[in-house]
């Protein structure tokens, strides 16, 4: 284990930011922390890296965080803003100069895809490019454990994928990564294990697929029937196929429909003479887990679906 935390607790006055969090990270693996704003992700990152006080036990590379050899860890804090009026190259030279042994600045710039922006002032880079410089700063000492607090915030989709590929290469070489993110696709793609933090507690931990199977619910098919169709009649027509059908306005949601069973639903609708405008199928994903375990206020408007969705049919 490169990181082991047992019963970590952190309070700020009367507010409990972390309430008995335990987790472990194996060498060469990626551990992603997800959770709502204010769940305690950044406090946990700070506890793990020794930049805040905490109760409980933490071993970072075999030592308490404040005694860990700083040469071996690379941290990108949340909302990190490096010294101003320096170029990307100068920033990496600066942070590299703080270590006894640092990587070649040119190599780090190439890794984060900024070789052609080396002599551009940090302030003149785009938000995504700035964040990539910050990731480069965390990499400059060639750390064994990389701790990244929201590393891809502000980076465009192509830039995010570049960074994912970089993290893939690093972990393949044995680097361990702990990161926080609000992007569920990022956690699902990168992480070997995911920890879902809510109200200071780790409410679920495990490989993404395992969490999805446990908490993500079943796949579902949504049918938007035509305006002049009696939705209740349509529901009766397809009830025998799915394991549960809900109707909201013109939308029928059928739980537990496999891709193979979509044809059966269409046949049943045709047989009953039900016309429909749109049909979509959604597989449970990490976002389903996130929503299932963190949504407690039913008055909140529903979060947008961003999981894997197949637009099966759009009919006139």
């Amino acid at each position, binding site marked *: 284990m490169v990181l082991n935390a047992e019963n970590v607790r952190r309070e700020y006055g009367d507010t409990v930011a972390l309430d008995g969090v335990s987790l472990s990270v194996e060498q060469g693996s990626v551990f992603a922390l997800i959770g709502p704003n204010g769940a305690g992700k950044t406090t946990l990152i700070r506890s793990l890296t020794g930049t805040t006080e905490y109760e409980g036990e933490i071993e970072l590379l075999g030592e308490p965080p404040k005694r860990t050899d*700083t040469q071996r860890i690379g941290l990108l804090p949340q909302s990190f803003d490096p*010294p101003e009026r320096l170029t990307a190259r100068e920033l990496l030279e600066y942070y590299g100069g703080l270590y006894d042994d640092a990587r070649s600045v040119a190599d780090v710039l190439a890794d984060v895809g900024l070789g052609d922006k080396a002599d551009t002032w940090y302030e003149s880079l785009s938000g995504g490019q700035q964040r990539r410089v910050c990731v480069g*700063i965390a990499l400059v000492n060639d750390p064994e454990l990389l701790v990244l607090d929201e590393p891809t915030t502000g980076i465009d989709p192509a830039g995010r994928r570049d960074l994912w590929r970089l993290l893939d290469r690093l972990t393949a070489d044995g680097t361990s990564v702990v990161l926080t993110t609000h992007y569920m696709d990022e956690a699902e793609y990168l992480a070997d294990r995911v920890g879902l933090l809510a109200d200071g507690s780790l409410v679920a931990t495990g490989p993404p697929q395992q969490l999805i199977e446990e908490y993500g619910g079943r796949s579902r098919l949504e049918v938007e029937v035509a305006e002049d169709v009696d939705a209740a009649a349509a529901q009766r027509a397809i009830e025998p196929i799915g394991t549960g059908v809900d109707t909201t306005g013109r939308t029928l949601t059928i739980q537990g429909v496999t891709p193979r069973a979509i044809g059966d639903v269409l046949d049943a609708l045709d047989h009953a003479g039900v016309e429909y405008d749109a049909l979509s199928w959604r597989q449970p994903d990490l976002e389903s887990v996130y929503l299932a375990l963190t949504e407690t206020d039913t008055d909140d408007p529903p979060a947008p679906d961003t999981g894997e969705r197949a637009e099966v049919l759009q009919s006139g």
Partner: protein
Amino acid sequence: MSATRRIRAETTAAFQSFVRRRTAVFFTFFFPVIIILIFGALVQTQPTSGGLFAQPPAYYVPGYLAVVVLFTPLSRVGSTVARHREGNRFEKLATTPLSRVEWLLAHTLVNVGIIGVASLIILALVVTVTDATIALSWLLVPFIALGVALFCGLGALLGSVAGSQDGVIAASNTIALPLLFLSETFITPSLLPAWFRPALDLSPLSYFARGVRAATMGPTADAYGNLLVLCVLTLLFLGAGAIALPQTD
């Protein structure tokens, strides 16, 4: 060797970051020039008339130097600490080998360099504009360096305590202004009430002013005692400033 490498990296970055902020550079040098032009050239000294500016022009050299030795490091280091806190830079630095003492030492070196240049300009300007007769003693070097370092330590303290850059600026002005005028710089002790005069010894800037005055006007021997006190105070303020620098949230 490692510490030297770290301090060099921090010093280089801090220096580059400063000299590229043109406005900051301009006003760092322009502020004392304005003071000299106002008091040295416009108001001028009136040695026989009593009251303010009744001393020979050379008497006010420590005051002109104090403008940069006091204000610049206090506000610059204070603001730098505040900016570092706002950008979570100390959180990052806490996970690097750079210690708080090394950080403060690096920023002190940058300030000593910048204010050393500003002091040379001030001395040249004072001699030219006010016809002050001063001795260019080597003792000016340690006095300026120690004075700058002392107020870098105080600036680090302010930056660590104040909640924002605005807070640092307000606090540094509130502290610096009375210090500038109540430290035997521009106002002689005889112009102050007798009961207040012992309080002059509480200002670190008084030892700077007395020492610089002794070094430039004589007797030089009087400078050494003040240099010793300034040296001790500098170590205390630098130590306190380094300890106060944030290492955690």
